[in-house]
């Protein structure tokens, strides 16, 4: 029996060998990056160099990259940091954001009197820029719409949304976690963005927020001078330093044609299995395919697991809760039978063939 076929790369990814080696080495440089002796100064210089390389790769300035513990923190930072400055104001978001956006929004609704408009996706899974425009109010201070959805993979046209916002003063943020390393991203479309390292073969507990230099925001973690006084706490320097390499390696692979090949291969294979419905469409990233099968999600995941295949249903963060997926619900897809397959370059065609074979077998056996 083949085993350890990992098809859940949207949830997290295998740490790249080179990244792991560098990170392990860096863990020995334990000095505090804010210390004034040589050891600390060297760590600081490496960290700032990493920041600069990241900024260069994304075409922005060094002081616009703020290291965080990941995308959830970055999302919380944006939402709470801005809400603290605009209590009772208005935020526009989509109905299918990641839980770190939705839950942070619920919190500021509850505590700061923020009013939130949730835009439903269209039937193709994308957010209509005109819906966003229609929701704008005088007191709207933030629009936050994800670039790539983590359940069915649809890509939103941020430029069109930016254009629809016109000259409105609201800041435009996007959770770009699932876009990074998969498609080209253009930060000139947005004012702020969130990113995570472990989704691009980096280490967990690492990520960053992009924020245009002139934008003022309240810190989420109030403490020392780290991160331009915006995010206190002793820097996670090993993770921050290795993030430049992580990003470089990920961006080098963005255009890899194998992903398209795998995609087409899987789609064709899935179409040939009776009872399988493909929920993803051509508006999405290639490396994620959402399907529905005649078997309920949980038994299906378990059955595949027994065969050494790892996939998930709805977003992993909600995997242990009983609520239906907001994304799938919004797209009128029955989340009880949905399955999310997300592959990457660590997979082989044989992995996919084996998956298709098992899927077929399970459906035939248990239907």
């Amino acid at each position, binding site marked *: 029996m083949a085993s350890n076929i990992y098809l859940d790369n949207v949830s997290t990814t295998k740490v790249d060998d080179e990244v792991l080696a*560098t990170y392990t080495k*860096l863990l020995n440089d334990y000095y505090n990056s804010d210390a004034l002796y040589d050891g600390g100064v060297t760590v600081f*210089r*490496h960290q700032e160099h*990493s920041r600069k390389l990241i900024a260069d790769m994304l075409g922005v300035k060094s002081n616009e990259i703020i290291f965080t513990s990941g995308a959830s923190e970055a999302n919380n930072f944006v939402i709470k940091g801005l809400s603290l400055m605009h209590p009772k104001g208005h935020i526009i978001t989509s109905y299918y954001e990641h839980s770190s956006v939705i839950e942070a929004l619920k919190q500021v609704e509850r505590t700061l009197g923020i009013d939130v408009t949730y835009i439903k996706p269209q039937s193709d899974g994308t957010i209509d820029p005109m819906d966003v425009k229609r929701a704008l109010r005088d007191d709207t201070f933030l629009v936050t719409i994800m670039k790539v959805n983590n359940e069915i993979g649809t890509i939103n046209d941020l430029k069109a949304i930016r254009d629809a916002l016109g000259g409105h003063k609201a800041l435009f943020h996007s959770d770009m976690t699932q876009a990074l390393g998969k498609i080209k991203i253009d930060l000139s479309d947005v004012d702020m963005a969130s990113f995570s390292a472990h989704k691009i073969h980096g280490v967990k507990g690492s990520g960053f927020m992009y924020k245009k230099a002139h934008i003022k925001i309240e810190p989420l973690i109030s403490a020392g001078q780290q991160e331009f006084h915006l995010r206190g706490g002793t820097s996670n320097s090993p993770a921050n330093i290795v993030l*430049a*390499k992580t990003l470089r390696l990920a961006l080098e692979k963005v255009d890899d044609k194998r992903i398209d090949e795998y995609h087409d291969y899987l789609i064709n294979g899935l179409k040939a299995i009776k009872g399988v419905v493909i929920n993803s469409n051509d508006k999405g990233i290639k490396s994620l395919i959402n399907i529905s099968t005649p078997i309920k999600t949980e038994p299906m995941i378990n059955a595949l697991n027994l065969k050494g295949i790892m996939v998930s249903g709805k977003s992993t963060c909600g995997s242990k809760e009983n609520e239906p997926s907001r994304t799938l619900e919004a797209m009128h897809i029955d989340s009880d039978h949905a399955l999310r397959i997300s592959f990457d370059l660590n997979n082989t065609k044989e992995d996919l063939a084996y998956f298709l074979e098992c899927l077929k077998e399970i459906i035939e056996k248990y239907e």
Partner: protein
Amino acid sequence: MNDIKYDYILCRFGELTTKGKNRKDFIDRLFQNIKKRLKDYPLLSYEKQHDAIIIHLNGIDHDTVCDKLKTVYGLSNYSGAIRCARDLDDVKAKALVLIKKHPYKTFKVNARRQDKSYPLNSDMINREIAGHILRNSDVKVDVHHPDIMLYVIVKNDRIYLMDEKIQAAGGYPVGINGKTLVMMSGGIDSPVAASMMMKRGMKVECLHFASMPYTSKQALDKVLDLVKILTDFQDEIKVHIIPFTDLQVKIYEHTDTSYAITILRRMMYRIADEVCRRRHIKMIANGESLGQVASQTPESLSVIGGVSENLIIRPLACLDKIEIIDMAKKIGTYETSILPFEDCCTIFAPKDPVTKPHADKCEYYESKFDWAPYIKECVDKMETIVIKNGDTRLEEDLF
């Protein structure tokens, strides 16, 4: 064909008014400097002509190369060029694509025959190409102020079609006029002064005064980072670091605080002189400018600079702070310069420095201790670091 790729970059020379040997030296030096600047691209090849240097791109991205060329002094301007067959139909087709690539409304064709045996004369070539563009696009001819001037150069085996001239850095190729020792603090001014000297064709070596432990490792790192930025203009730069603390302490012991900065700076010039002697340099430059405060008054500059036996150039002498900041931003040193670390002049800064010091009073204070051995010791203990372009001074394999 709807996109066009440049085959060459044609580089034109800067202040090349001289003739004969000087002209040859200028071109040779510029040629070397361009090659050094582009050393990361071994696929490029070069052709040296009497009025231009032609870079054959051989598939390397045109914008990437142009970006590098921006910091080469001695280059007046450059253009992307496309190689055409010696056949007007080919030139016409490519000219049209080139024009359509830009949002230009008006144009003019400017043809030149270097090979006079070509059957059509320049006017005829101009009309042929312009006619083709007019018939196939909405762009109009404007002979006086065209948005784009299309240059056509007829050679004996090919025809070049050339895009707009892009302004380059100008000046003289670095190294053609000898060497200068630039006194380099961590501030905004000295890197700008260094780049201005380079623009005049001087190769620079830097002199930095470090006052450990009163100044930090970071302060020194900052200076080296600034020099690193300057290696975009001069591929390799020597930084001489003077351990200045002992002499500095002696100065404060023996002089009235109001004269301390004046004497300190006189000592710096003496040390610079000694370094010049050892390094065979005959010129000193720094970021001093004329102002109203302390060491910047004409009296101060005169009394301080008076101790030096070398030619002193102060390229910033007559510039406003705003102008200097603009230049620092342009050469890319500003952001690093404003990082807050103490340098050797800000520590022990007296509250009451003289604004009009007298030479005889300086000599009086200086007679109170035997400073010459300290000068020698400073230079004996000098540490020299060579900074090369592309060298991050960091552990590269982490990134």
